[in-house]
């Protein structure tokens, strides 16, 4: 069924600060995920330059035959992107929700250092709940 394969969070300099994969398909080791994150960061930046209209905010959706990639960039430069099955709905809403979880459980943790990899248990727990709820909502139809 419609499913999320993986979630990445990149800081404003393009470094990977969070990576989670959810399926048996498309599992990546640490080095590959780091590489993927900086690749995406560069592509996102290039897409803003390529746009014929100024003020472009970069790639929001990439559709391939075996996956979709939805990307959300906050105004502070942090990017949240999710690789999912083609045709998965409501990913923008999910990304926005993950952004809110990030502002709550990561940024409000005084021991979290800005721009560093996220190691916040509360964030992981709430993220799993959010993804689970999303999965249930999709399967329930």
């Amino acid at each position, binding site marked *: 069924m419609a499913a999320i394969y993986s979630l990445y969070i990149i800081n*404003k300099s393009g470094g990977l600060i969070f990576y989670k994969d959810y399926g048996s398909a498309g599992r990546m080791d640490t080095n590959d995920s780091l590489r993927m994150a900086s690749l995406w960061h*560069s592509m996102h*930046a*290039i897409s803003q*330059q390529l746009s014929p209209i100024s003020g472009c*905010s970069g790639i929001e959706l990439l559709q391939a035959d075996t996956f979709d990639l939805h990307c959300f960039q*906050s*105004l*502070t*430069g*942090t990017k949240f992107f999710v690789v999912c099955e083609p045709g998965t709905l409501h990913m*923008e*809403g999910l990304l*926005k929700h993950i*952004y*809110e979880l*990030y*502002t*709550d459980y990561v*940024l*409000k943790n005084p021991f979290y250092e*800005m721009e560093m990899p996220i190691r916040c248990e509360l964030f992981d727990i709430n993220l799993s709940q959010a993804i689970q709820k999303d999965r249930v909502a999709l399967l329930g139809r």
Partner: protein
Amino acid sequence: MAPVAPRSGDAIFANVERVNAELFTLTYGAIVRQLLTDLEEVEEVNKQLDQMGYNIGIRLIDEFLAKSNVSRCVDFKETAEVIAKVGFKMFLGVTASVTNWDADGTCCSIVLEDNPLVDFVELPDTCQGLYYCNILSGVIRGALEMVSMKTEVTWLRDMLRGDDAFELQVKLLKQVPEEYPYKDDE
């Protein structure tokens, strides 16, 4: 998907969890008193409050953006309006106003009639150089820096020093968008 409309400061303030105002005032007062005891110099305390505010601001901005759904501001005038009307309302429960724009549109004043940080506070003679609410200037500076604006925030009027309102001058020094070094090869 249609973009979500930005929410007003009142709406967000009504929806967030709130804390007892006395606890807030007492906690802030305890911080300032402790800094004065530890650092002794009023100037040092001012600097430290600003630094603390900066550290809050860099994190607060994402919270603000996530909850308020504002889109990118067109110019600095809009930025100042959003800070005064939505930001201050959302976090302090007070509405500020924006005045005194300069000719370029890069410098303005944000005026606060009401300020929960200073409830019940009087500055003694020994602390006359103290900017009690300096944390606010740091918060604004930190928050704006995370959205590519370098600013200088200073106090013009301070009710604890005898003025009739709190007035913060916010001056935009420069916009520093993320630059990607792809042009270096030319």
